[in-house]
């Protein structure tokens, strides 16, 4: 069973190296520590929703106009009241809503999703985990 011992050794070496990378690389650590929370959705899950989902861009107007998910609506806290109107006109109860901003560390999408749920009754609003650019962009 020498091959079994050697296989186990190689697997163990890789596990130790992986453990060291978690200890010293913040990006690797974030992968293990950053468990999905309530009201979050991965890029893969969001893509699977297809045209059924309403996409909300939580960034500034300048960033939105530079490029955004195809069909997304802009909604940010610079002009919440006016920007909310087309969102409410489009949303129907039960329609999934995906809110995104620039990166994993971005707070804006979280705030917008919370306000949509708490103030606007959009109980399906979730925050995108991952890069929005991986979804079909315009």
């Amino acid at each position, binding site marked *: *069973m*020498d*091959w079994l011992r*050697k*296989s186990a*050794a*190689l*697997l163990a*070496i*890789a*596990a130790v*190296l*992986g453990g060291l*990378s*978690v200890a010293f*690389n913040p*990006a*690797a650590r*974030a*992968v*293990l520590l950053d*468990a*999905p929370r309530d009201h979050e959705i*991965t*890029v*893969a*899950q969001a*893509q*699977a929703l297809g045209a059924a989902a309403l996409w909300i861009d939580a960034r500034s107007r300048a960033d939105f106009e530079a490029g955004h998910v195809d069909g997304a609506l802009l909604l940010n806290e610079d002009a919440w009241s006016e920007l909310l109107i087309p969102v409410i006109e489009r949303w129907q109860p039960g329609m999934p809503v995906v809110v995104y901003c620039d990166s*994993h560390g971005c707070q804006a999408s979280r705030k917008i999703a919370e306000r949509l749920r708490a103030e606007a009754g959009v109980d399906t609003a979730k925050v995108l985990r*991952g*890069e929005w650019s*991986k979804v079909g962009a315009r």
Partner: protein
Amino acid sequence: MKMLKPAIRLVLTALFVWAAVAKIADPRAFQDAIASYHLLPWLPGAVATVWLPWLELTLAIALWQPRFSRTSAAMLAMLCAVFLVALVQAWLRGIDITCGCFGDSSVVSGADYLPYLARDAGLVALAVVLWRLEKNAAPVETDAASYNPLVH
């Protein structure tokens, strides 16, 4: 024929070192790619994200270590077979994925799958050939019953 073994070793090493480094450089992108296959729940996916690239790197380097080369070739063949099965199941289910194999983040759907399936099948074949060549090369591994210290 003499050059075949080192040539295959070189190709597999280069490919798997490249694949490993690309994944280690951007763990989040690799995690998203694993999630796109809709196979693993979050925690096993996260563990695979941090462990798999180092396994690829370890196996690629172990190909050049006489004591481990055959085992490493066999493990690479199995690893590629697992990747192939993951690709096939995503293709059959009609899922759009991000391959994540070499750090690429392009979406794979429909007919786009074919080159990826061919590539993985080719890698399985290469690793199996290398394993066979290593097996036939020298009787390094012996079990206790047939071990003869005078011959060793």
